[in-house]
């Protein structure tokens, strides 16, 4: 009696209506989108519901979609795992490009504290209510959010490379 995906979907739709949508099976993981302002309610519901029991946050990360419309430029991705049924789901919440912010889930899953800091570090996404939202992997003096597509991957301080031989353009060096 494994936990079926249509059961998850029915329960979510019954509780949250049109705030959860775009249900689909991506490869072997059941995925859906959630309206960004409902993320804490949905995560809390998935964690505490006696049938769903998604009590483990596997991963939390950001994605940058620079070609999307302004309201969907960033996504925060949540991976949840039900250990009783060994069932995993993926949730995406899209947020605005000009003012990327979303409520923190660090009060629901303590493990998300560092993952949200990492997401802030690389994408500049503001997690409202996070107890200590500061850089975690990069140096504190860094001003850019390096995983955003507008920032170059290469280091600008490099002096021993001849741009012509390394495929670098003047725009990113």
């Amino acid at each position, binding site marked *: 009696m494994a936990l079926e995906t249509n059961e998850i979907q029915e329960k979510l739709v019954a509780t949250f209506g049109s705030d959860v949508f775009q249900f689909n099976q991506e490869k072997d993981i059941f995925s859906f989108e959630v309206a960004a302002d409902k993320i804490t309610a949905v995560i809390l519901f998935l964690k505490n519901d006696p049938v769903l029991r998604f009590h483990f946050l596997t991963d939390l990360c950001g994605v940058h979609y620079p070609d999307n419309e302004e309201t969907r430029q960033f996504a925060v991705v949540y991976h949840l795992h039900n250990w009783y049924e060994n069932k995993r789901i993926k949730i995406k919440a899209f947020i605005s490009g000009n003012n990327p912010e979303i409520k923190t889930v660090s009060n629901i899953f303590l493990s998300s504290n560092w993952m949200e800091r990492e997401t802030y570090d690389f994408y500049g996404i503001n997690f409202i209510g996070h107890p200590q939202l500061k850089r975690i*992997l*990069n*140096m504190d003096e*860094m001003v*850019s959010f*390096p995983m955003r597509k507008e*920032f*170059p*991957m*290469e*280091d600008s*301080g*490099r*002096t*021993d*490379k001849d741009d012509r031989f*390394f495929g670098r353009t003047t725009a990113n060096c």
Partner: protein
Amino acid sequence: MSDSKTKMVAPPEGVVGEGFFATTLNDVVGLARANSLWPLPFATSCCGIEFMATMASHYDLARFGSERVSFSPRQADMLMVMGTISKKMAPILRQVYEQMSEPRWVIAVGACASSGGVFDTYSVLQGIDKVIPVDVYVPGCPPRPEQIVDGVMKLQEIVKNESVRRRSSPEYQELLASYNIK
């Protein structure tokens, strides 16, 4: 054993007589320093593994007077930086260098420490010579233990020929000032 071939360090140029040997202070000090370099390994990745092989019995860096690996910068002469140095690590490396007492030398082992290597990216320091002065660069990714030993021997040549006054010379002060090290 009497028939074993022990290779000794050759004496410097000088005047030999019965019961005495006269040479310059520079040569004597250089000889002593070059053959008792205490390494401080600053190993962050795979070059560090090669260094472990270099220190172990097969390659045995101890043959060149570097028997005593110092894990305190205050007692070390030769800082060996082995591996990728991220920008977040740079101030720590610099602090370690500042804690070493004069005279001090630095070897950048491997492509990453020398130039950032393949990590031409926002988080990696593009060569440790951006933050501290370097005496010898060892190429390789990672270099073989022979190459590291060769680097140490190259440094020994530098140490042997260094003037005892170099560390108080204006050129040296200028070099440190260019790195903003007081």
